[in-house]
């Protein structure tokens, strides 16, 4: 590293160097000495005078002239400094020049020197000294502990640079943009920093950047500057970050909250954007199921800031379970993820919460046809922030107000609410602790009474969860980060279905405990590492009554609406599923940072325990069973950047998943189910067509084994209604063409072609997975029309789910119903889904920090009749389709301050 220094050098009578300056030089000129002596008697026997030269008491380092930096050479300026009897510098002259710039810098510095005055026999006297000021360029190696930050700020629409924008970091460093909109802030401590942009040309906006030691972030910030208002002060200020981001996963899609809220069909719900990402199958209308890369919905795990939650969406899929005001971003990783996560055979969804560091009091209130929500956040002290959010649905009330029909006959109308609370305390500059609460509740009721009580049906379901968590996060000076997240909570589900006198009940009340603790940081120049522990325990009490065939499982052959088998049973049981997984991961940077090899390992001992190995005879005690199994899960990902615009990637990983507590019943399942296993293989490439336009393609293959499937035997053994004998495979390719914000537009096109199959028993053939969708195409675009208007379009096409055809029927004379005779398993499909959705929003600026947004979100603009399920006439001689929503307008408004 090159540093610029200026040094003073002595020529005469060096004294003690002031303030560590190498040498202070003093040369009392002959004239000075003569004048001093003249004042004294001139006698040969005159007493010897004691002369003490002046001492430099305060040294001021001269600034190395910027104009001379490029030359890369030093210089020496010889100065004559006049010092009065008080030690003050009264005059500085140049005796030996080194050029105007060096001369001026040396003179300016010398004028600020302060001396202890020269003395003659202890009496202060004025003197003149000669002083050599040396400017030197020194080369020395310095181990850096910081990173650098540079970039440009420009107008989002015109792409023109904006000058005089103050770019400030939360650590206090700041810089002003120059005429080219450029700024530079050196020596930034590693870790996450809030970046704030402010200035006369725009309102204050902020974002977060992650800095690493010895690395430089080159950011491009596109903002909407304030424009001349014409009585319609509705312009918004927004920041769009296009800085290169660190790719954490081989295949993942991250969407920032600011964009996600503008996607048609989401009604402003950030997390609903996940449905539009590549690799995600379209969920059936009203289901909200998350099917990723052909895996079952229960195989994809959802984390909110490291806290596992059982679902991403409320019943019906109308809303997510976290307030959008709290969400910073959402990331979908369909497979091949690293060892920091496990316990799931499918994908991973991680929700990042927005940092709480804003000064003042802020919040929002929103309402639409479906629900209403509110959130507030407050800076209590400099170090303490709190935030609270809540939401409640009223769709059931709206429907009952506008129609006297029993809507529950046709569609489930969910009733839900959720809430979140956060308290964040800043322990130090880069150290925070957060305590939070997440709660969610869903209820759904359907009733379909009939004149014949044997045909009456009803369904009541409930799903609740809550979490209390703490999160400690510290960014150390060496670029490392430590995060510890303990959490606890409950999960409760209940289902009561009746079909005539056949009642199906299934309840699960669980306590969930989790701990995630990890360190991530640099190990040496080319190696970063992650090490930590991921533990989770679920203690469940379950109850089930009714038919073993209800509710249906994936792979069951049945038709929608078919009555459940009338044979019933009953069981109460308890389970404990626990595992603690230490993990380690390294990121080895090779080939001048073009090649990244990221090996990882996760070692996970599982304990699966049930209190009933078999149904006990009446009066006999329960005999339980405990299984222990330790699995080793290697993970590996490799990326190679052929050029700055073209990179290839590949990954492999082994994943395990414990059996569901619901499947461990000795009556309805199998207490000895084993861990299911999946292997993910994927490879792909990324092409940066422009700075903001990227195309990404990923091919994948995943196989699964030890899946729990129904026993095919006509005489299954006791406690073996389910067997771990299913295997599965999914393979395909996904494409993503994504245009980041450019001018008023952003959007993406995603397309997945895939096939997912299951084999339920060794002697059975492969069949299509119930959730298989061969083609899923989504195109999303949002356009800022100006003056606060914004529009968006979304087009979706998805192959219909497979179903098993009915090829005949026989009459059940005992119940007076026809029973279907089925053809080949999952050999037909529901017709494809096609929908065009649109969104139009208008934002009214009410003040510097408050606005109202009114939006119209119209789903299925073309009113296309989309089949969602196959239904049959009572004798199975006619086939029809339940269709999804026709044109469905949702009007909403949101006030934020």
């Amino acid at each position: 590293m090159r540093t610029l220094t200026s040094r003073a050098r002595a020529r005469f009578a060096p004294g003690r160097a002031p303030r560590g300056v190498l040498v202070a030089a003093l040369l009392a000129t002959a004239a000075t000495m003569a004048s001093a002596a003249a004042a004294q008697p001139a006698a040969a026997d005159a007493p010897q005078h004691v002369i003490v030269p002046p001492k430099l008491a305060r040294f001021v380092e001269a600034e190395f002239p910027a104009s001379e930096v490029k030359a890369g050479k030093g210089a020496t300026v010889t100065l004559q400094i006049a010092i009065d009897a008080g030690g003050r510098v009264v005059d500085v002259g140049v005796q030996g020049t080194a050029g105007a710039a060096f001369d001026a810098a040396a003179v300016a510095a010398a004028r600020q020197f302060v001396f202890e005055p020269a003395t003659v026999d202890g009496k202060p006297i004025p003197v003149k000294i000669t002083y050599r000021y040396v400017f030197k360029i020194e080369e020395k190696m310095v181990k850096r502990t910081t990173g650098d930050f540079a970039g440009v700020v420009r107008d989002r629409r015109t792409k023109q640079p904006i000058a005089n924008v103050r770019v400030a970091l939360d650590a206090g460093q700041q810089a002003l943009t120059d005429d080219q909109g450029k700024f530079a802030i050196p020596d930034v401590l590693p870790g996450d920093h809030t970046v704030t942009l402010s200035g006369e040309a725009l309102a204050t906006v902020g974002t977060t950047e992650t800095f690493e030691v010895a690395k430089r972030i080159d950011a491009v910030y596109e903002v909407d500057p304030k424009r001349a208002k014409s009585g319609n002060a509705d312009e918004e200020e927004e920041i769009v970050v296009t800085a290169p981001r660190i790719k954490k996963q081989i295949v993942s899609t991250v969407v920032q909250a600011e964009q996600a809220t503008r996607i048609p069909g989401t009604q402003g719900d950030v997390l609903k954007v996940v449905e539009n990402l590549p690799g995600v199958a379209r969920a059936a209308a009203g289901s909200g199921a998350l099917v990723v890369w052909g895996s079952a919905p229960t195989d994809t795990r959802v984390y909110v800031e490291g806290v596992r939650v059982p679902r991403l969406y409320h019943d019906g899929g109308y809303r997510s379970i976290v307030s959008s005001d709290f969400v910073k971003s959402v990331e979908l990783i369909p497979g091949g993820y690293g060892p920091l996560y496990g316990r799931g055979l499918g994908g991973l969804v991680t929700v990042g919460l927005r940092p709480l560091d804003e000064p003042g009091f802020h919040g929002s209130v929103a309402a639409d046809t479906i629900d209403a929500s509110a959130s507030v956040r407050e800076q209590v002290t400099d170090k303490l922030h709190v935030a609270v959010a809540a939401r409640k649905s009223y769709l059931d009330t709206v429907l009952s107000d506008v129609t006297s029909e029993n809507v529950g006959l046709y569609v489930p109308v969910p009733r839900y609410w959720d809430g979140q609370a956060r308290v964040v305390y800043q322990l130090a500059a880069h150290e925070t602790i957060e305590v939070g609460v997440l709660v969610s509740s869903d209820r759904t009721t359907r009733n379909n009474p009939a004149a014949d009580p044997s045909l009456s049906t009803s369904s009541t379901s409930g799903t609740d969860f809550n979490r209390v968590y703490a999160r400690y996060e510290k960014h150390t000076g060496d670029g490392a980060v430590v995060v510890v997240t303990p959490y606890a909570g409950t999960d409760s589900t209940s289902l009561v279905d009746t079909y005539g006198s056949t009642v199906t009940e299934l309840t699960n009340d669980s306590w969930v405990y989790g701990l995630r603790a990890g360190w991530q940081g640099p190990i040496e120049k080319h190696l970063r590492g992650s090490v930590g522990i991921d533990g989770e325990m679920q203690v469940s009490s379950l109850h089930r009554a009714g038919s073993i065939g209800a509710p249906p499982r994936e792979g069951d052959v049945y038709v929608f609406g078919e009555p459940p088998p009338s044979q019933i049973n009953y069981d109460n049981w308890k389970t404990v599923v626990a595992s603690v997984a230490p993990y380690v991961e390294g990121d080895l940077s090779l080939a001048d940072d073009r090649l990244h090899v990221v090996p990882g390992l996760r070692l996970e001992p599982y304990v699966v325990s049930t209190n009933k190995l078999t149904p006990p005879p009446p009066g006999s005690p329960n005999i339980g069973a405990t299984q222990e199994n330790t699995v080793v899960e290697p993970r590996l990902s490799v990326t190679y950047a052929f050029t700055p615009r073209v990179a290839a990637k590949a990954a492999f990983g082994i994943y395990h998943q414990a059996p569901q507590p619901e499947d461990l019943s000795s009556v309805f399942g199998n207490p000895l189910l084993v861990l299911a296993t999946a292997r993910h293989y994927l490879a792909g490439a990324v092409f940066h067509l422009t700075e903001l336009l990227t195309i990404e393609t990923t091919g994948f293959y995943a196989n699964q084994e030890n899946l729990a499937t129904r026993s095919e035997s006509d005489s299954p053994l006791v406690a073996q209604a389910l067997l771990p004998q299913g295997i599965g495979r999914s393979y395909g390719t996904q494409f993503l063409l994504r245009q980041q914000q450019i001018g008023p537009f952003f959007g993406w096109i995603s397309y997945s072609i895939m096939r997912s199959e299951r084999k339920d028993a060794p002697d059975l053939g492969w069949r299509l997975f119930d959730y298989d969708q061969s083609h899923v195409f989504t195109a999303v675009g949002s356009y800022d029309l100006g003056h606060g208007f914004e529009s968006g379009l979304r087009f979706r096409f998805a192959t219909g789910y497979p179903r098993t055809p009915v090829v005949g029927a026989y009459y059940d004379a005992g119940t007076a119903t026809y029973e279907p005779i089925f053809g080949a398993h999952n050999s037909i499909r529901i017709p494809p889904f096609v929908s065009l959705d649109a969104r139009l929003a208008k934002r009214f600026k009410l003040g510097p920090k408050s606005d109202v947004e009114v939006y119209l979100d119209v789903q299925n603009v073309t009113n296309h009749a989309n089949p969602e399920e196959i239904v049959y006439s009572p004798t199975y001689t006619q086939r029809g389709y339940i269709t999804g929503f026709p044109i469905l307008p949702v009007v909403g408004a949101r006030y934020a301050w």
Partner: protein
Amino acid sequence: MVSRDVLRAALLASLFACKPNLDETVSLVAVPQVLAVQATPAEVAPSATTTYTALVVDGSGDLVGLPIQWDFCNARNPLANLGPVSPECSEPGDANLAPIGSGAQATGAVPDVACRNFGPEVPQVTGNETPGRPVDPDPTGGYYQPVSVFVPTSAGTVTSVYGTRITCGLAQGTSEQVSDFLGRYHANVNPAVGSLTASGTALQPDANGATNTLAAGQKVTLEVGWAACPLSDACGDGVCGPDESVTSCAADCTTPQGCSGAERYVNFDLGSQSLVDAREGMHVSWFATSGSFDLDRTGRDGTDTATTSDDGWTAPAQGTTVHLWVVLRDDRGGVGWAGYVVDVQ
């Protein structure tokens, strides 16, 4: 702002478009079909003999004298099959079918392994196989031996399956509960149609050779009635109730007397693991060769003590002879029916 009417229209449109439009009325008889199968007695123990009768009809009325093929289906139903019986029971000639007989009626002895194949007893095994899982009971505590019914008609073979309720005792519960159950449980008796009225006017059954008359296009309320079974035990009422036995009431229980209406019976409640008193629900299926019913099926659940069930029926607009059937079923698999001829003028 969107008006309330627009909102209402949008919501209603979005909801009602979900309904499939499948126009099929099972109460209208046009082609050969089996409407009901009856076993007499309605509930028997393994090895006991019972007689099967089918109500087979088409658009012209009852089809009599058909060479119906009757088989016991001995294929156990795999747990992976969510239908009521094994798919093999609907396949003529399957190896798991054991012939009972052929003709309008058939009489046969229920297989002696019925309670092992279809009941609470441990299934049969061969060699050193581990015994499998018994069959679960239905909500009334019942188990059923499948009977396959293949009816050759002009439109091809019509396939039906019927479950004969078999007396297998109680699989769960303590020995005291099992003993108590065996003493208190009485086999089911088929229900019987007691009466049928059309807007208050009694209709005469076809079995009596009678013809009833209604006006073309006339809308009437058909009300079927059945026997009022006692709601509590009373010795001498002709019905052997759950708490009556030969010892306590020889008059009613020496030869167990049932009731052709909604009977009371004892059941084992899986949740409370105790014996509970229960009462049958009654279910009515309405059929006619012409005209239209308001509902294909009506009924009463076990808590409803009414002994009638009604349905609206609109006579055809043109004068014709209409065959009308009422099939009565109880919760325990019992079946009864009656046919009527209506001269629509």
